[in-house]
């Protein structure tokens, strides 16, 4: 079975599990929307227009709650399931790719819905033609965060304090993604080019892809 076929199979299994449990859209997403509402309520009256901070709040919450979505599979994986994957001869790179693709798909949907919620709650002043660049930024940030969370989830798997530790590992490493994604809308509002920020996102994603695929075998050994 080819690497791609194995990867899509891993992705399919992860998505089927998610469809049955429904953590992302039934629990984490409403929780993230509540966090958006808390921010809008807690914004001091001295801030003249709450819409000015809307996109910044969106990216902060998208990354922090997105980590929960992306880490969900890694955190709940049992030793037995890992053993079965190894006995079946599943390529570790395919496992990394499949898991990341599933998380990226969920994160893209999660962030897209959260962005719509932010627009409704904060009514930000979006620049003209924002839809495609924002969609692309969300997609690239979701892909990067998914790969980062897959790597961190494996590194912290089996440890007593794995949830807190994995979050500590991901949050600072996700900064290039946050900067790149948040600056896309910022640059459009200021009539500056967005290419450099898209390139930053693509470079970070490629670096994580190379690291994830290249380190997948040692990662499999290390997580046991």
């Amino acid at each position, binding site marked *: 079975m080819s690497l791609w076929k194995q990867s899509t199979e891993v992705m399919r299994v992860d998505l089927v599990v998610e469809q049955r449990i429904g953590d992302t859209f039934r629990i984490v997403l409403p929780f993230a929307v509540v966090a958006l509402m808390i921010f809008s309520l807690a914004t001091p009256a001295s801030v003249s227009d709450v819409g000015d901070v809307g996109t910044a709040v969106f990216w902060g919450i998208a990354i922090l709650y997105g980590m929960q979505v992306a880490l969900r599979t890694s955190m709940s994986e049992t030793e037995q399931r890992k053993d079965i994957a190894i006995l079946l001869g599943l390529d570790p790179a395919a496992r990394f790719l499949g898991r990341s693709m599933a998380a990226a798909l969920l994160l893209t949907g999660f962030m897209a819905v959260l962005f719509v919620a932010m627009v409704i709650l904060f009514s930000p002043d979006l620049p003209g033609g924002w839809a495609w660049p924002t969609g692309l930024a969300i997609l690239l940030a979701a892909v990067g965060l998914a790969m980062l969370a897959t790597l961190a989830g494996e590194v912290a798997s089996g440890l007593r304090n794995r949830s807190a*530790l994995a979050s500590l590992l991901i949050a600072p490493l996700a900064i290039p993604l946050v900067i790149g994604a948040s600056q896309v809308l910022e640059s459009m509002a200021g009539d500056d080019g967005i290419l450099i920020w898209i390139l930053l996102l693509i470079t970070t994603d490629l670096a994580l892809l190379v690291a994830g695929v290249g380190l997948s075998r040692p990662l499999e050994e290390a997580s046991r």
Partner: protein
Amino acid sequence: MRRVQIMLLIAALALTGGGYLALTAPLDDLQGEFTAMLYIHVPTLWLAFLAFGITALGSIMYLIGKKPRWDRAAEASAEIGVLFAVVGVFTGMVWGQAVWGQAWDWGDARLATTAVMIFVYIGYLALRRAIPDPDVRARRSAILGTIAVIQVPLVYFSVNLFRTLHQTQSIRPDGSTMDPAMVVALVVNVVAFTILFAALFMGRTYVARLEAARATETAPAGESVSPPRLKEIEDV
């Protein structure tokens, strides 16, 4: 241990020389005596970058060869890198308060990314503390050490990517914007701090070797029961 002591002595001499040059070098017209912060701030942050680079190198070499010495090098370098980065940020804050009128500005990309870089390596050290088994610890932290270095170029180039409060590089491939005497003082201080880094690195790896030896001695029964030493058996 003797070599570490000699290195520390050389570092102390070099830092004294560097300090003298820093205090006698020409002052910047606008910054006055606070120019002297340059000779601590820049070397410490440069060495933090170097330290995190060595952590990445040690991590990659461990993944390739599984030699424990590379893991010890990565750990020692990360610890010293965090120390130098914290000193660099602190001196930067003092300098910023004096020159910009504020110690910290979240809108400044260099400050924000440097703070985040420190947290990346605090996470690396936290991961190491969380895993008791030395082999598992070495393997997992090697993976993180390899990925974490992605932050270093972002911090370095943040002043070029964003036009914010922090100035861009003063020494560039096309020349320097600094007085030659200031460049000499800066280079001497970079060398002095590098010697200090080498001494601390040697000392920390020495301690790590002792820790590894001790862990091997007590591993079978944990900390409460130690296996009998050869000398104790002979005494009986």
